[in-house]
């Protein structure tokens, strides 16, 4: 909450939003508080594990959207950072006996480090090549996880102990874990909001909109791109590591390319380049998966149809459309 308050001054500098920016900041703050209130009430109505799953994927989508929506870079391999972090956190907690917060920090670090290596390679090419490179590198990470001895191959790492947060709070209680996940989620969301509205975020948008111009103005575009890539990968890692504790499980599904596709879908459905879009997208996608799980391959088909429909008719996404309707950035 503190973060969001300090971020509220920043949007005033965005010329594109014009005089409405102060209103927009107030609106964002209201939505953020509403969201926090909703998260307090929701477990009384909905299954907490479902909500935690939504939050983990929403965080993943927010991380991805930071790169796509604000950096203009379509990574098709974000499952690598999500999944590798998930493995790292699960392994650290199960084998090394790390406490949850340390394991999650380690996972985040692993995601960021992998993002640094892959990002440095991928930003050497642009546009469509960037997407293909990130996808190919993520596939390499997938094969690594498939063959490496510590990932448990097809079984994954099962029965990850939830442990005690800071050695004090027992997370094996779903309610305690829920509060922890909600705090991580809201904190990360506030951080991303702050990044987007910082001078760094503004420079990023300038590079996204016209890279040669930003370079001619003296911005080192590749350094900005790499920085946002690492940030995005770290946050994806945070999401993956947290997910490992919610389900007490890290598997190959988390590093598979279909996971990369899912996070693209979430962002597309919710609205690329909007702050709250990925949350809506994650909610829609996870709900869809839960209800359609019994229909097997139909999930894939419906996801495909949603992709096609979104690209053809609905490129702004749910939140993008609402933002256009109320004429305020969301």
């Amino acid at each position: 909450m503190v973060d969001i308050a300090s971020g509220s001054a920043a949007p005033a500098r965005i010329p594109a939003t014009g005089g409405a920016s102060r209103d927009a900041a107030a609106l964002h703050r209201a939505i953020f508080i509403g969201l926090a209130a909703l998260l307090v009430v929701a477990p009384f109505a909905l299954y907490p594990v479902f909500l935690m799953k939504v939050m983990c994927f929403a965080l993943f989508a927010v991380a991805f959207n930071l790169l796509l929506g604000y950096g203009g870079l379509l990574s098709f391999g974000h499952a690598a950072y999500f999944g590798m972090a998930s493995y790292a956190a699960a392994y650290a907690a199960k084998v090394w006996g790390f406490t949850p917060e340390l394991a999650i920090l380690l996972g985040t670090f692993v995601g960021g480090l992998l993002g640094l290596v892959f990002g440095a390679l991928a930003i050497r090419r642009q546009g469509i090549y960037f997407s293909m490179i990130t996808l190919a590198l993520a596939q390499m990470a997938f094969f690594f996880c498939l063959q490496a001895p510590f990932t448990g191959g097809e079984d994954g790492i099962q029965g990850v102990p939830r442990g005690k947060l800071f050695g004090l709070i027992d997370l094996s209680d779903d309610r305690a874990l829920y509060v922890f996940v909600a705090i991580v989620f809201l904190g990360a969301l506030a951080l991303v909001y702050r990044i987007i509205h910082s001078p760094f975020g503004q420079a990023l948008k300038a590079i996204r909109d016209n890279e040669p111009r930003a370079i001619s103005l003296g911005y080192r575009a590749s350094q900005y791109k790499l920085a946002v890539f690492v940030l995005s990968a770290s946050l994806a890692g945070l999401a993956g590591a947290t997910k490992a504790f919610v389900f007490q499980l890290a598997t190959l599904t988390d590093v598979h390319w279909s996971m990369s596709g899912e996070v693209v879908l979430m962002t597309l459905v919710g609205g690329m380049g909007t702050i709250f879009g990925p949350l809506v997208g994650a909610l829609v996608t996870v709900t869809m998966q839960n209800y359609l799980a019994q229909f097997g391959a139909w999930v894939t088909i419906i996801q495909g149809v949603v992709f096609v429909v979104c690209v053809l008719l609905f490129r702004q996404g749910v939140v993008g459309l609402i933002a256009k309707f109320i004429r305020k950035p969301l």
Partner: protein
Amino acid sequence: MATLFGVPLQALSGQLLLGLINGSFYAILSLGLAVIFGLLNIINFAHGAQYMMGAFVAWMLLNYAGVGYWPALLIAPVFVGLSGVLLERVLIARLYKLDHLYGLLLTFGVALIVQGLFRNHFGASGLPYAIPAELSGGHRLPFMFLPTYRGWVVVASLAVCLATWLAIEKTKLGAYLRAATENPALVQAFGVNVPLLLTLTYGFGVALAGFAGVLAAPVLSVNPNMGADIIIVVFAVVVIGGMGSILGAIVTGFGLGVVEGLVKVFYPEGSATVIFVIMALVLLVKPAGLFGRTA
């Protein structure tokens, strides 16, 4: 038995041949991707699904209609190509004015739909497709046993690749295609029907994928997931070769197949990732790709 670097020559040449076969598929698929990308400026994510369709159409022709391998080698690509024409007309044509990202996302969605439909109907396990009688058996060469069908795959792929290259470099239609790749507006001003050319090019690129699928059916099992696995490798092949040149795509495809085969002999654990590692190295040394113009 003769050995080379401690590896029996038989095993080495066997893996080399397998590598050449994989390389054939890489070459045909990356060729199709390059032709489509050159003119339409979209990356066809559905390429793997269309390759899989080729194999399934051949399987269905045999099992439902009793049509054998040889007619299928012609019918299946035509059918897959026509489905591509339909896809281009109905969906892809709406995206030309948008960012290239949308083409990738749309075809990714199409790939999910096609794969899901086939998996629903045929299950996830592979279906067998027998090698045609004329090509069964093999030849005993002095250093190895050469299964006839595998030799045929390599020869047929090379022939198709070279024919495509000749068609693009030496025919009038190919000249239109190259011209439209450079400057579509100008070519249209000269009275060439560019939208039709786009449709035909997409159909042709997709038909190539279907052809590779039919070739693959007897070697690999016919499986709804066969396309998803190969397309990512083909993307890496395309990044390594660069999409600037047709011959470049062919050479890179075959070359990387052979490298993959060799790695399978000397360091089996690395065979799944070697192409991605090569891609990373090429990006470090020559970011535009081996045959690429500066991107």
